[in-house]
């Protein structure tokens, strides 16, 4: 069993990114992992944007990242890249905060034209944070997801497969120190 933190960076409380992130979290939980979710929008904006490390909520969020064996990083696509909201949280992490951790990147977006944002925009950022392994991620087209939480199997099945492979990887003795 691994400790997994799902971080999602949508500014909206009722977002498709949140639906997808919770879906992956539920799948990993069902597979026996200890999964919790962190919505960047719930963190205090002032502390986050001015990197105020004295803020208790921000400190708690950073501790959760430090304690996790693995992270699911989920973001909507804005302007052909991950959201600024997600980036504000990644910016306050220590330089090599993801060292020794397994990462599953997930994006949601409105056009398949932006699928490559995952590998061209998000992945390099995760690599620069020292992630040991950034797994194959998935871009979920928003037409497969409703903000109420419904998802069409056709659009989410590939993500579920990748989440299961990610879960299996976390079970390997070497994956969890």
């Amino acid at each position, binding site marked *: 069993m691994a400790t997994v933190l799902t971080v999602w960076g949508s500014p909206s409380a009722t977002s498709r990114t949140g639906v997808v992130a919770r879906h992956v979290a539920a799948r990993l939980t069902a597979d026996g992992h200890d999964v919790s979710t962190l919505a960047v929008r719930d963190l205090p904006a002032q502390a986050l944007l001015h*990197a105020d490390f004295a803020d208790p909520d921000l400190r708690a969020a950073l501790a959760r990242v430090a304690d996790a064996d693995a992270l699911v990083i989920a973001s909507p696509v804005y302007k052909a890249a*991950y959201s600024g909201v997600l980036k504000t949280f990644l910016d306050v992490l220590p330089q090599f905060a993801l060292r020794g951790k397994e990462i599953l990147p997930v994006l949601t977006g409105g056009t398949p034209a932006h699928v490559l944002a995952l590998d061209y925009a998000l992945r*390099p950022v995760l690599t620069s944070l020292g992630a040991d392994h950034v797994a194959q991620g998935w871009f979920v087209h928003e037409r497969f997801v409703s903000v109420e939480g419904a998802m069409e199997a056709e659009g989410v099945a590939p993500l579920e497969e990748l989440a299961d492979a990610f879960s299996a990887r976390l079970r390997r003795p070497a994956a969890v120190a």
Partner: protein
Amino acid sequence: MAQPVKLVVVSAGLGKPSSTRMLGDRLAEATGRQLLDRGVEADVHTVELRDVAVDIAHNLVTGFPPPGLRAAIETVTRADALIAVTPIFTASYSGLFKSFFDVLDNSALTGKPVLIAATGGTARHSLALEHALRPLFAYLRATVTPTSVYAATGDWGASAGAGDDLAARIARAGGELADLAAGLPRAAAAPAAEFEEVVPFAEQLAALRRG
């Protein structure tokens, strides 16, 4: 003289003073000077994203920009030319910088001349300009100058002179932005005389057939 060019600097620097702001000021100065050389005055405005940071967060959540942010958005949207400067964090633009451009309309920068620049601790993340910033402005259909400017901490110590690469880069980028903003074609890369010697392709083909 022609109408002044409204030149806007967007700085995502957090410190006071901020090297990001300092780089923006130097780029604005270089652009303004070279606009004057072209007979155009520059009217320079600076938008410090630090001052509207919390507004940006609230706008993302509520969808409505508070007055301070609305003013910043209008300043940028109405600019004739833009200088966008961010600190580099995790090999990319800062979250604050990206959040500001996230709230702009997709058409706000269409066709606008933009100079992209960044500051960082070391030169090792220079390519973030080409791999993160340039694609962002390409998405927004801005016209980005060929030269982007990255200033590492060590570059600031270099004295002006032959060895001052940063100063040369700032001048070149400023010239490119001045050309775009003044509506002038950029200086030809090669002298026209070089092309006088060129034998048209059809003639070369004809010569081959004869051979």
